[in-house]
């Protein structure tokens, strides 16, 4: 285990974490403001990636594709919120879980129907292709650095939105007391639609960004969704700060764990066992982390109990 490898993997972990943040920020906002648990959030990730792939295929422009992912996911978000989600706000969590689970089936099979079962491809644009040296010795993928940058920019953007704009004030007030803000004349249903669409578009963007390094296929959002849940449970539901810290924590733990745990175990156990046990435990590591945090703080690091 060299320092270079470690820093590389650390950066990978941070990159993973920033994408997780895009997913979890939306999820936790939607829960914090509307009290809605949305299992179909991963579908927006998928929709964003598919929109991007479609537009990239048609126009050849990566940047237009990114824009398309934001728009496409946002539009999908608005439509779904109006047609289905808004009937769920008053329902209990079980109904929300089931309805949004059903929504996943609907959306996944719908996309599969339209696009077929084969994955689409989205390529990294020329300008971001290749590597770039950082910290003298380390050569890192330009595109991954770009992702990290985007992630941080969006985090800052969200921070500014939430703390310094009117919309942000309404969102924060809504998190605290829904009835009050409607009594104060804020158009609740519009606010909810906006928040939902915002969450959806963030998810869509991360889908498109990752779609360029992995493939764009049906169901791609689900593993990320589960991780996003782990993140917001760790960070505390409703807390964007918690989502950010949780995402980086989860991203780094997962990446470093998978890469280095087998090697670490090789010190103690026979190498062939160490590899398989190491990678198995590595894949379970963040869940173990989550369990540990929940035992000590049942409402997450920054959540309200």
């Amino acid at each position, binding site marked *: 285990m060299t320092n270079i490898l470690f820093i590389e993997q650390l950066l990978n972990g941070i990159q993973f974490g920033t994408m997780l943040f895009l997913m979890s920020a939306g999820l936790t906002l939607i829960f914090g403001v509307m009290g809605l648990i949305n299992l179909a959030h991963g579908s927006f990730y998928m929709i964003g990636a598919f929109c991007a792939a479609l537009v990239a295929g048609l126009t050849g422009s990566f940047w237009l594709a990114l824009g398309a992912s934001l728009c496409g996911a946002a539009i999908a978000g608005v439509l779904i919120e109006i047609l289905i989600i808004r009937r769920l706000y008053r329902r209990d969590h079980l109904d929300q879980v089931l309805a949004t689970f059903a929504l996943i089936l609907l959306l*996944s099979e719908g996309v599969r129907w339209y696009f077929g079962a084969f994955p689409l491809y989205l390529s990294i644009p020329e300008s971001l292709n290749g590597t770039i040296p950082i910290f003298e010795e380390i050569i890192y993928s330009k595109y991954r650095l770009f992702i990290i940058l985007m992630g941080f920019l969006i985090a800052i953007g969200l921070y500014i939105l939430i703390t310094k704009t009117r919309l942000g004030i309404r969102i924060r007030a809504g998190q605290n007391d829904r009835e009050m803000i409607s009594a104060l004349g804020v158009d609740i249903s519009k606010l909810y639609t906006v928040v939902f669409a915002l969450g959806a578009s963030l998810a869509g963007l991360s889908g498109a960004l990752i779609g360029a390094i992995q493939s764009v296929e049906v169901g791609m959002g689900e593993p990320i969704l589960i991780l996003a849940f782990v993140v917001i449970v760790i960070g505390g539901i409703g807390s964007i700060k918690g989502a950010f810290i949780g995402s980086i924590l989860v991203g780094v733990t997962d990446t470093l764990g998978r890469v280095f745990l087998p090697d670490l175990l090789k010190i103690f156990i026979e190498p062939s066992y160490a590899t398989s046990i190491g990678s198995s435990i590595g894949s379970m590591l963040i869940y173990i982390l989550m369990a540990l945090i929940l035992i000590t703080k049942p409402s997450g690091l920054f959540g309200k109990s």
Partner: protein
Amino acid sequence: MIIEKFFNKWILFLLIIIPIFGLIFEEPYYITLTTKVIILAIAGIGLNLALGYCGLISFGHAAFFGTGGYVTGILSFHALNEELLFSWPIDIFGSSEMLIIWPVAILVCAFLSLIIGFLSLRTSGVYFIMITLAFAQMLYFFSISWPTYGGEDGLSIYVRNSFPMVNTMDPFTFYFICLVWLMITLFISFKLINSAFGMAFQAIKQNEERVKSVGIETYKVKLIVFVISGTMAGLAGSLYTDLNRFVSPSVLDWHTSGEIMIFVILGGMARLYGPIVGAAFFIILEQTLGTYTENWQFWLGLILILEILYARSGILGLFDKKKSNEK
């Protein structure tokens, strides 16, 4: 209520008559299909206790279903390949006897649900949903990355496990074994619901604060229900492996958790026969729509959404005018 009881009797009747039909006309397909419904119903009956009656929204029951399945697969695998399972501290062999596999699967799943329940029940609401989901996913990823038992490709067992004096490979025989288990779990479920303990856990679903204030330790009650529920799901998983002679990580996936939930909800929550109706409906949809289109789950999703928005009490609920317990 009377109509519901009538309907329930009809369901059981069908569960018996269809395989007999299959036996007489030599169409094992119907026997196997009914067996599948029965096994999934057992998992649903387990979940219904925790979810339908006690209000514990566990999105991770696949953890127990899948563990039961894997315990069975692993024990068979070792027996068929004549390899030791462990050799320390004592030699432990595999087994291909159902009478040994079932107790092992039950004990392992009871223990697993005890641990997961112990940790998860410290939380509530959304946290509980997510933590149960996450634990199941943890096991899912573990099973994919553990190469010894097939990893992602799964584990095949070529010969179904044996039961004394019968040929379990015969579809009707195996169906009958599963039917007996269904009767047992229905019976246990019935007894629990009508007991004092049943009163406690059903009350918890509606007003936990009140139950605590009359001096009932709700955490303990919930934990016991959760363990019983998980154990039943685990038993179903074990039978499922024997049905298919195959087990793979997909039995641990959250989609499986979601599907078990669907049986419970579609059939009617907190109704004894609900999971059977739900499982039957699900399998029928899969078999009929599934022949027309690969994307049949699209329609399942649609039906489910419509049901949640407009027909909340499930299929059995349609027959019941007294809906005071449902929304």
